[in-house]
């Protein structure tokens, strides 16, 4: 173990390619605490404690089984681990198991660190103000279950699995779906009103 502590990331990854389990343990020792901390800070409000453990385990699992797809020239090991962990968290929210599928090992194009979502276009300073206002609306104007559903909506990229949310919050699936529809409507109304106010201001100046 002491020897491994002295090794750089590239050497650890080479050892991992040889299926060295001690190298995996060293990577977890080196980066695991902060990756867990990142998951806790980012998804602490939408994932429950047992889910945090599962997400971290799944991230470590994908790091291990796709070890040969890590490209040191494309970025650092910790960045790769972070993105794998992010994807595992989003999959947990959506209750998707596809990132754990055995088939993926036979798909040479697949990388567990790639973002499954579409490329997000950049935003200008005007839109940034709207986004900050929308975030403020979600976090400070919505309350209770509606607030939780709204945060879950944007963090999971469209909303968590309804069954999961119903179990966590002790609600019916119908209640979760209805609340999500209501919250989405409120967010759209907020955006429309915000944009109308901006237009009015521009018109009067």
């Amino acid at each position: 173990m002491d020897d491994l502590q002295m090794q750089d990331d590239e050497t650890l990854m080479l050892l991992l390619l040889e299926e060295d389990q001690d190298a995996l343990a060293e990577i977890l020792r080196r980066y695991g605490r902060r990756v867990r901390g990142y998951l806790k800070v980012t998804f602490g409000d939408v994932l429950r404690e047992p889910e945090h453990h599962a997400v971290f385990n799944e991230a470590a699992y994908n790091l291990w089984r796709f070890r040969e797809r890590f490209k040191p020239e494309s970025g650092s090991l910790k960045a790769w681990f972070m993105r794998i962990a992010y994807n595992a968290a989003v999959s947990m929210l959506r209750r998707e198991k596809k990132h754990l599928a055995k088939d993926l090992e036979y798909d040479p194009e697949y990388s567990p660190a790639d973002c499954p979502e579409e490329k997000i276009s950049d935003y200008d300073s005007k839109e940034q103000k709207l986004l900050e206002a929308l975030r403020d609306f979600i976090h400070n104007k919505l309350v209770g279950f509606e607030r939780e559903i709204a945060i879950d909506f944007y963090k999971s990229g469209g909303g968590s699995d309804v069954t999961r949310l119903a179990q966590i919050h002790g609600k019916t699936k119908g209640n979760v779906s209805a609340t999500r529809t209501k919250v989405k409507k409120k967010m759209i109304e907020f955006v429309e009103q915000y944009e109308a106010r901006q237009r009015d201001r521009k018109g009067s100046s």
Partner: protein
Amino acid sequence: MSHDAEKRLGELAAKLRKIEGLCPMTDEEADAAYDAAPEEPLTENDIQSIVESVTSGELASWEPIPDLDWIDEVDLENVSDDAYQLHRNKGEDDEESKLAEDELRREMIEDEDENDEDAEAGGTTPPGAGR
């Protein structure tokens, strides 16, 4: 809630994720997020237990992944009017189609009358008349 409004909300949600430093993280962003993250406890026992379950392949899911890429190509906007027609309640009146149906019915009756007249005048046997 209109399709456009829902689409716009989806785009804003994606940008909100980006503004919060979430997906898709570039390497620089991921490094920065890592450096800014607090440390969470991870004991040597935790690590050994994770290594054991990970290397044994316990977490693998053997369910095949359906190929759903084609779904993106479906544009439902083009068929929304047809869908309304399909879901129209039985017996619900629509003035335009009612007029068209009446016109068709009137033409069919006129055709029948003409056929009967032709049969009487020319002596031809109308369909089914020989039975």
